[in-house]
């Protein structure tokens, strides 16, 4: 149905430079999608003079707006009629009402802008993607297929325990939602007061996630894309919860599987715990003996890190550099754990390195 509508829209767009689509009969307004202007016809010279003297007689509004004023615009007279240049571009898929109040009554024209391509958004993935995550996990990420609308995130997600009981306010309510620039990836931050050991909310309400339990994170069917298209169906993600992770990240415990020289095989690292996937992608880098960064494609699922070189591996010593900002999913770093005993935080952190020897067969 939606596909059919889109096809019709596209056909209309292709066929028409001007789109005359006024609903009321008395005046007509045509939208020029190249300039973004509206051209109004059906006004005589006296009426145009009157509007020129009293521009407040003309109002352009979103249909159903109850506000008194018009949207900001500039008017000009041309041979073909009155031209309206909106200060802010008219939005695709929106219906506008043009109203001109004259002494003998008001004249109206409705302008329906065609929508842009509306794709139904999908929730593609969530992170951490492991089947069992620590009870003190700090954040979860939702990856959507389309840019999503801001402002509805916390109302759209529900965390349910195994028996279907809703976990009360598990996520931090911030004034600003945390999205990436494309607004396809949302960050859900568990309330830090619920995660830190021995902090009031933790003691009173407990950690939002309890070890040994299973949970479902439900994203509402009503969550909308930036184009206003809802998900259409509730999406559920199930995961189990293991014990808290309170220790520092221990790169010494990582297992490195090295490829042979001359091959283009993947270098892979297995972590000692679930590392924050996006931090791993940013904070791990492979360098040659001279310190130059090796070119290739890195990937991580949080459980490990893989690196495919663009050129076959030469024989030699490489260095896997781990920036101090690397965090696991519970906020522990190499320098210190998230909940640090008093007096242990404050030492300057340095990058940690792991030597990788690439040997011939």
């Amino acid at each position, binding site marked *: 149905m939606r596909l059919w509508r889109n096809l019709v829209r596209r056909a209309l767009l292709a066929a028409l430079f001007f789109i005359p689509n006024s609903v009321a009969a008395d005046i007509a307004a045509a939208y020029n999608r190249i300039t973004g202007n509206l051209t109004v016809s059906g006004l005589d010279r006296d009426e145009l003079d009157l509007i020129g003297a009293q521009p*407040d007689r003309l109002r352009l509004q979103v249909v159903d707006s109850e506000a008194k004023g018009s949207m900001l615009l500039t008017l000009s*007279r041309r041979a073909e009629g009155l031209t309206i240049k909106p200060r802010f571009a008219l939005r695709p898929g929106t219906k506008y009402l043009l109203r001109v109040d004259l002494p003998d009554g008001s004249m109206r024209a409705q302008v329906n802008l065609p929508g842009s391509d509306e794709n139904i958004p999908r929730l593609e993935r969530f992170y951490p993607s492991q089947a069992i995550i620590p009870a003190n996990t700090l954040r979860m990420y939702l990856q959507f297929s389309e840019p*999503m609308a801001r402002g509805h995130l916390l109302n759209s997600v529900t965390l349910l325990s195994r028996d279907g009981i809703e976990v009360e306010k598990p996520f931090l309510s911030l004034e600003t939602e945390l999205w990436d620039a494309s607004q396809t990836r949302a960050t859900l931050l568990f309330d830090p007061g619920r995660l830190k050991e021995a902090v009031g909310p933790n003691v009173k309400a407990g950690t939002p996630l309890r070890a040994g339990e299973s949970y479902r994170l439900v994203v509402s069917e009503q969550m909308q894309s930036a184009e206003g298209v809802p998900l259409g169906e509730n999406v559920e993600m199930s995961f189990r919860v293991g014990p808290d992770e309170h220790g520092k990240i221990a790169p010494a415990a990582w297992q490195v599987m090295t490829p042979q020289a001359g091959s283009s095989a993947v270098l892979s690292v297995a972590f000692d715990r679930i590392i924050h996937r*996006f931090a791993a992608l940013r904070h791990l880098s492979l360098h040659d003996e001279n310190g130059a960064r090796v070119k290739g494609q890195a990937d991580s699922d949080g459980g490990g890190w893989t690196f495919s070189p663009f050129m076959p591996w030469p024989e030699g010593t490489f260095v896997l550099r781990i920036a101090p900002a690397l965090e696991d999913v519970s906020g522990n770093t190499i320098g210190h754990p998230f909940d640090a005993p*008093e007096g242990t935080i404050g030492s300057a952190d340095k990058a940690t390195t792991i030597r990788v020897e690439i040997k011939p067969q």
Partner: protein
Amino acid sequence: MPHSKSLIPTTALALATALSSAAHATDLKSAGALAFDDANTLFVGDAKAGVVHAFDMTGSVTDQSAYQLGRAQTFEGRTIFNNLDAEIAAMLGVPTEDVMINDLVVHKPSKQIFLSVHRGRGPDAEAVIIAVNNGALEVVDLTEPSQSSISVGPVPTAETLEFGQPLNQLAITDIDYYKGEIFVAGVSNEEFSSKLRRIPFPFTDQVSTSSIEIWHAVHAQYETRAPIITQTIAELGGEPTLIAIYACTPIVRIPLADLKDGAEVRGTMIGEMGFGNTPLDIVPYVNAWDGTSNVVVTNTNRSAASLNLEAVSAAAPMPHGEGVKNVFSVAGVQQFPLPMSGVMHLDTLDETYAVVIRRAPEDPRNIQLHTLPMPFFFDRADHIVEMNWTTDPRDPFGYKSAPPIEYN
């Protein structure tokens, strides 16, 4: 006339096109936290671009001293706008739900209110600054003021661009100006560290952003990291001090002298505003009735509170260490609850009035721009009190005998 329109004769058409094509400042990618310096510089947090912009608004501000803000003697505030979001939506030509009002700030010398607004909720939302001019809304033309910017977010380097565009962003939660510097707090979507950026203004050519990690002692035997949500700077006992409120609402005091580049500073935790709550704004004000200096803190899930600065200065650090019992709720430095809920943004207009964007007490769907008389941030009309009842002959404070306010 709230919205300006003009009919331009045909002869002037070419000029009109040239003017209107320069109507927007193109480098404002988003508009969040707002602040003014002591003069006319407006700071705008632009999380999407990862920068703070500074606009010199000299010549772009209009004196508002003739606009009546209410009648403080009878505890009456003024509703400047009902359905503020709908009014803005009408100007911008979008449905009301596509307007996001992100912050509010007052230019104190002129008492003019400025709002940061997004037109749309998608990644292509347009950022707009709106001024309130004698009860009317105006879009500020940001191509007029001279502008400078400083980077505060993750800066993509040649290397990070080569190895993939980073997805991390800093959501700027607060900007404060104090004596030639701005202090920028933010929450990362990927990292948990609490970094406070201290930046000299005017901005220098170099990106000289200081990153300061703040560690604070929390209850019992742990110290930990959390993002600062809102902050202000005040002199406590003559010493400039940052008063910051964290996500899980500890109140922390940090002398500015401790905030050095690269330093890992331990703030002194002096209070706790209670769990299940996020602070919104912390704004300094002077209580004109007794001359005391205070800060007002607004919250998402608790009513607002006032803290006296002498008490903040004198407050003992909250006990921590082994054997200390946990704090469940409000504790530490004394907090005076204020009858303010549903407040989304707050700033002070002058020594008598504050201005808020709030959900109307009788209809939460109505988002109001409303003034509140200080020092109690209390509007008599919001509450059911005997002094409002017309059938009650008592009038101990003379409110009923006061003539009705006729606003200009």
